[in-house]
């Protein structure tokens, strides 16, 4: 079956494949930010952490020609920004919005500077290739076969993190502590939970995942770095975390939805439906606002989100 001369099967395959690929960084960054938000930290630095992950991931991959080291470089880049965020908001108790935006500005300046200085601003590609595996039989299924069962190993690892994070949040002492700290740090403290340590671990995890998401984008997917390449994806991830009600499974679904929204534009253009790139470009951002409207009032924010914690000061 064909449409405008394009095979419909090919079209659906491409759309599903691209959509799932675009969803990965959103899902990964959102999963990590669940812990930050649940612990009471409104992490507007996530955009900067992700961008930092993109650059340091790309740089490591370019120098070592290794996907694994590239991903580790990205994680380090995201974690460094997160620790800075943690120190200022948890330790020094400075306003989280101010610090978050400062981190995002700082990361944009830092990565832009280093990229210009080290690469002359040219678009060079890292000589890496993330290895793919083809799952026998399943990959022969039309449409979903090539889109789901013939992908990079790292792609599977990312989606495998969804159940891992659900387990971490709902079935471990750490997850329980995080949720307690976000609801009432005072009660958690009185019950013997180390509030400061829990919040540090939570923002650290968020930074690691944001860096990982950035590295996935720059290393595994595109293999290049461009200045400001995250274009708000970190903020979108932050919103998806809220939209998903801090539930890893719903967040994964939300990320796929927005990944598909991204892919829809590309796919429609391939088929030749006359739609302008600008309309496609703004779909995810409008989508986030619409989703917030639809779910408005249906989600309960962690009670202490955005509030610094100081012992004995209520």
């Amino acid at each position, binding site marked *: 079956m064909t449409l405008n001369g394009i095979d419909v099967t090919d079209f659906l395959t491409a759309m599903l494949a691209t959509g799932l690929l675009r969803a990965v960084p959103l899902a990964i960054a959102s999963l990590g930010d669940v812990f930050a938000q649940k612990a009471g930290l409104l992490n507007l630095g996530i955009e900067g952490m992700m961008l930092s992950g993109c650059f340091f991931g790309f740089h490591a991959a370019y120098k070592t020609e290794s996907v694994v080291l590239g991903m580790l470089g990205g994680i380090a880049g995201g974690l460094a920004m997160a620790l800075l965020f943690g120190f*200022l908001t948890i330790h020094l108790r*400075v*306003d989280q919005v101010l610090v978050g935006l400062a981190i995002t500005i700082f990361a944009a300046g830092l990565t832009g500077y280093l990229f210009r200085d080290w690469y002359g601003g040219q678009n060079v590609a890292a000589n890496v290739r993330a290895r793919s595996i083809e799952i026998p039989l399943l990959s022969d299924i039309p449409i979903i076969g090539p889109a789901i069962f013939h992908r990079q190993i790292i792609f599977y690892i990312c989606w495998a993190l969804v159940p891992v994070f659900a387990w971490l949040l709902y079935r471990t002492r750490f997850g329980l502590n995080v949720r307690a700290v976000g609801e009432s740090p005072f009660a958690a403290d009185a019950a013997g939970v180390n509030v400061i340590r829990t919040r540090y671990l939570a923002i650290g995890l968020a930074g690691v995942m944001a860096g990982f998401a950035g590295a996935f984008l720059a290393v595994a997917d595109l293999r290049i770095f461009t*200045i400001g390449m995250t274009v708000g994806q970190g903020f979108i991830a932050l919103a998806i975390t809220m939209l998903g009600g801090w539930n890893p499974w719903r967040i994964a679904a939300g990320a796929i939805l927005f990944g598909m929204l991204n892919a829809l534009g590309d796919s429609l253009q391939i088929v030749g439906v006359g739609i302008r790139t600008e309309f496609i470009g703004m779909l995810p951002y409008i989508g986030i*606002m619409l989703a917030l409207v639809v779910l408005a009032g249906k*989600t309960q924010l962690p009670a202490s989100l955005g509030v610094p914690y100081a012992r004995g000061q209520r």
Partner: protein
Amino acid sequence: MTERARLSGMSLTPLVSSLVAILMAFVIGGIFLEATGKDALEAYRILIDRGLLSNTGLTETLKKMAPLLIASSGLLVALRAGVWNIGIDGQFMVGALFSAVTGAALVGDVPDPVMWIAAFAAGFIGGVAWALIPALLRVRFGLNEIITTLMMNYVALNVTAWLVKGPAKDPKIVAPQTRQIPLEHRLPKIPGSDVHIGLLVGLVCIILVAILFRSTVPGFMLDVIGRNRRAAVHAGIPVATLMVVALLVSGGFAGMAGANDVFGVQGLFKGNWNPGYGFTAFALVYLARLNSLLIVPFAFFFSFLLVGGDSMARRADVPTYFIELLEGLMLLCFAVAVYLERRWSQRTARAASSDPATTSLAVAGESE
């Protein structure tokens, strides 16, 4: 405002934190420059020499002050009321496009001053229109403005890029841009200088905002809302209405900053033209400690950084992104300075109760 708060607002102590933060940022930035193999002192010398001490540099710095002053005065209104308008960039772009289209339609047909006023009004309307969506979402659905204003920035980038390729495009030119306003119809220069009168517009905006906060009831109400929203509700202040007005006004000012750049500098609106004043305005309003008149010297300082930074890129091989890095460092150092200041004030006067820097904020669904 209590007498104590008024005094602390007037004293120079809060300024010390900002100056220390700026100094620290320059030191860390210098170490960073050295670490990446640059001559930090030489780079800073060029920054000051070209941004401040040369005639052209000073002129450019004074010109660039205008959009920063206009946008910051609006942002101040929002931030003082505790409204996080992070959508300055989007409001700027839409305002710039509105004013460029208005100017292109009127140029030559009406006297220039009429056109300028119409264009600035159009810029204001454009900015307000762009802030209206987050404002409505806040009123109707209780959505916090942080995420919505951020998202609107990216939407604006796409919408203006589309409009300037289609309906708003100059049909005579291939490139996606509006019809160019001829030089002789742009904003006139301040007599005896090369600086266009946008700077005066900026100063007027700051003075208006200063008057608003110093001697009017709505300004006082906005301050109360910013300091303690719950108390404001109990005092019968129309909190929701005023917060929406603050958001719209700050959007309008950002749009006027766009009009200023169209009629003072560019002469037209181009697709994907986003100078990114939003974050700079944010940094400078914070470093000015949310004080209206202090915004003037800080706007001058940040404008100087932007202008000098361009020269640094050309003459000292320091990428222009260094200035953005420096802005980020200043805010981070400022965060540390605010903490130290708070500890200091707690030690000197144990009476200090709650500090605005640690006030809470909810993200969505505030139901007060």
